[in-house]
């Protein structure tokens, strides 16, 4: 009951109404009953006293003249008072004078002598002793014993009060139900809706307003509050959603960064591996030269080894530089009208030795007649070199490689196909990604940086073409397709760039080498002397200048970073010598910046080379040098395959 009260306003209201009703009724009933019983008792006592006085007055003569009979007759008159059960008259000396007992009632023992005057209650009876006086003389005492109905009355009253209470409490219960409808129903509705809102998080719920009193105001306020909370929750959810979206985007970006980072790590590992690989044969070759330097066959073999490995290294670094330039947007094409055949020839020149070493058949098919392109021939050659090199690398000995070009209207399509290991279908989309490696283990048989294909595709795209790959699957060989636009009406055709050094038009030259790198300058000098040229060496700028004045070289390879006198100042100094006005000055630097190139031209250099320098780069230059001390300086724009910096 008490616990129910704690949880229900309805029960509390009912209890309040009932308790109030009960308390009011009880207090009223107690007051009324008390008043009534008091009045009743007073009236009854007064009545009896009067009766006793009448009896006394009537019986005074009987007492005075000693006539019990008359007194008894007087007492007999009490028959008309049914509530008086017994009566007696005592003489002045206390003896019983006359007595009366109501017939039909239980025997009432009449006291033998008068008791204390006054009235008293004995159980259900009221007893009264009253003295009889005549004039100022006491004649005797009257005794009356009557029904005293206080208890009966009390019982009756209690029954009435009980009945009234039951009826009143029933009314109270009805009233409390009415109150519940009027008061608790709105509150219960608010409570119910609040519960539902909490459970379902549905802020569109509203409490129906049924009254205009304070409860109605409460309902209105509650509804307004729901609206407010709903709006705020919605706003919060929106914010959360956008935050989640942002988080997802950031997560994606982070994952992409992580993947790129991983690819970079793998690339670095690969790079180190690839850079390290040629060094072992290099060391072996040097060892051979040291032990069997006198044996021409061994020396030749060692030189071949070192040459191959060095070329591999240079190619790696060149690729890296190109990747870097493409990534930073610094790569610029040097486009001019060129012919397909010369580009293919250049690429084959570079790769044929590797293809032969792999013992592969190469089949080249070109369209009839010239095909003209507006392109950077060197870069396109580089693309083909990459594709051919790739094909050779992934094809087992005895396989076949084909380069097939077709020209349709304004498009040129070059197919580089092989019978190699092929490409799994799921790998086709990613092989052009930077640093992509199909086999990611360091111990893989087919080494590479994973930049070749990516670089090739970017170069083709810079030419406005596309590079795609096809493969029927692993083991089914693969095919790379270069699609390029063609120049419809060719203008002047530049003759093919001198193809490699032939040494046919050999002439003995006086050559000055100035460089502080002792190893480089000695090996370079050895190569040039072996060709029959006269070579002088200088290890710093001032020495070089003195040597130039004395030696009067036809060709001078000057390092820019020379001690004592830098390359630019040295060049001006050399150029100012009368004997060296026409000397072919070639700047040799480790940097490929455009600034260096400009400075070099301003300082009077004719050409610019970046280290490392290969004999193939040098030989054509030697043929361009003017005859000894005669003729003007032929300052034409020569073009070299590879080495020259086009940045």
């Amino acid at each position, binding site marked *: 009951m008490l616990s129910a009260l704690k949880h229900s306003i309805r029960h509390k209201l009912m209890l309040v109404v009932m308790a109030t009703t009960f308390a009011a009724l009880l207090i009223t009933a107690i007051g009324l009953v008390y008043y009534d019983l008091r009045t009743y008792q007073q009236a009854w006592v007064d009545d009896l006293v009067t009766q006793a006085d009448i009896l006394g007055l*009537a019986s*005074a*003569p*009987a007492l*005075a*003249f*000693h*006539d019990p009979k*008359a007194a008894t007759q007087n007492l007999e008159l009490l028959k008309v008072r049914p509530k008086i059960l017994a009566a007696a008259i005592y*003489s*002045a*000396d206390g*003896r019983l004078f006359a007595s009366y007992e109501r017939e039909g009632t239980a025997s009432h023992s009449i006291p033998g002598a008068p008791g204390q005057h006054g009235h008293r209650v004995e159980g259900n009876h009221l007893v009264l002793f009253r003295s009889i006086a*005549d*004039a100022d*003389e*006491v*004649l005797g005492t009257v005794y009356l014993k009557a029904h005293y109905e206080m208890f009966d009355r009390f019982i009756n009253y209690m029954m009435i009060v009980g009945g009234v209470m039951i009826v009143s409490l029933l009314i109270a219960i009805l009233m409390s139900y009415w109150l519940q409808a009027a008061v608790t129903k709105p509150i219960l509705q608010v409570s119910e809706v609040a519960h539902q809102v909490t459970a379902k998080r549905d802020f569109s719920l509203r409490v129906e307003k049924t009254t205009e009193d304070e409860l109605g105001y409460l309902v209105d306020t509650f509804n307004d509050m729901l609206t407010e909370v709903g709006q705020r929750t919605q706003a919060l959810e929106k914010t959360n959603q956008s935050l989640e979206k942002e988080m997802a985007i950031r997560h994606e970006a982070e994952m992409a960064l992580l993947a790129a980072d991983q690819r970079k790590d793998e690339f670095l590992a690969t790079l180190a591996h690839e850079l390290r690989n040629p060094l072992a044969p290099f060391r072996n070759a040097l060892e051979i030269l040291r032990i069997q330097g006198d044996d021409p066959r061994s020396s030749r073999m060692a030189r071949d080894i070192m040459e191959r490995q060095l070329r591999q290294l240079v190619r790696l670094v060149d690729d890296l530089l190109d990747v870097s330039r493409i990534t930073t947007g610094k790569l610029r094409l040097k486009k001019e009208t060129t012919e397909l055949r010369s580009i293919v020839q250049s690429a084959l020149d570079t790769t044929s030795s590797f293809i032969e070493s792999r013992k592969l058949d190469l089949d080249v098919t070109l369209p009839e007649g010239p095909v003209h392109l507006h392109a950077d021939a060197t870069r396109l050659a580089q693309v083909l070199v990459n594709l051919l090199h790739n094909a050779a690398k992934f094809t087992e000995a005895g396989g076949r490689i084909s380069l097939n070009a077709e020209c349709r209207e304004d498009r040129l399509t070059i197919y580089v196909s092989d019978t190699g290991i092929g490409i799994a279908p799921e790998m086709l989309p990613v092989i052009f990604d930077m640093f992509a490696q199909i086999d990611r283990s360091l111990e893989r048989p087919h080494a590479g940086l994973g930049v070749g294909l990516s670089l090739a595709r970017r170069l083709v795209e810079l030419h406005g073409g596309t590079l795609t790959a096809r493969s029927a699957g692993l083991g089914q060989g693969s095919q790379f397709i270069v699609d390029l636009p063609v120049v419809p009406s060719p203008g002047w055709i530049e003759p093919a760039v001198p193809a490699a050094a032939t040494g046919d038009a050999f002439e003995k030259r006086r050559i000055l080498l100035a460089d502080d790198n002792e190893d480089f300058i000695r090996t370079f000098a050895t190569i040039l002397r072996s060709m029959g040229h006269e070579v002088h060496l200088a290890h710093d700028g001032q020495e070089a200048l003195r040597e130039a004045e004395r030696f009067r070289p036809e060709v001078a390879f000057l390092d820019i970073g020379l001690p004592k006198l830098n390359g630019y100042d040295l060049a001006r100094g050399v150029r100012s010598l009368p004997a060296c006005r026409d000397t072919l000055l070639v700047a040799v630097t480790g940097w490929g910046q455009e600034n260096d190139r400009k400075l070099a031209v301003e300082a009077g250099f004719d050409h610019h080379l970046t280290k490392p320098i290969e004999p193939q780069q040098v030989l054509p230059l030697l043929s361009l040098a003017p005859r000894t001390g005669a003729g003007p300086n032929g300052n034409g724009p020569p073009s070299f395959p590879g080495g020259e910096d086009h940045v």
Partner: protein
Amino acid sequence: MRGTVLLLLLALLGPAASHAHDGATPLERSVKAAFLYKFASYVRWPPASFPTSDTPVRIGVIGEDQLADELRDLVAGRTIEGRGISVYKIEDIDPSAGIHILFIGREETSRLDDLVRLANSRSILLVSESEDGALSRGSAINFVLREGRVRFEISLPSAERSGIELSSRLLSVAQSVQTETTRSP
């Protein structure tokens, strides 16, 4: 205290009253004296009988000196409605004495007729103790012995003739009440 003594006498009356005919016993005499005193309370005289407000109630006794003495002792210090009580022994009828109640002893019953005449003219309550028709001769109240107890008879006509009213309460305790005249005096 005196009342108590009186009632005690009344209570002791029973056995002593058996010798009434041979002359009153002391107890009987005492009871009668007490009754005489009490009658005064139940009687109303004409206003002329009490000229002043302090006129005492006078009770005369003829032929019974002992009773007179007892009565005198009994009423000493008592009052009736504020009036004192005087008791006189009367040898001869003195018309000017202003008696209110006159008791005629048994020995003087012969004088009753004269006294009735006096009583009627002076509004005197006559009380006798005769056995042979005192009421019919004109006495208002007559003592009798019944079952050894002193009782009294009343004659309303006799009282009326004297101009005296008797209380109905007194009538209620009388042995008998004559309401009609049986014989003219």
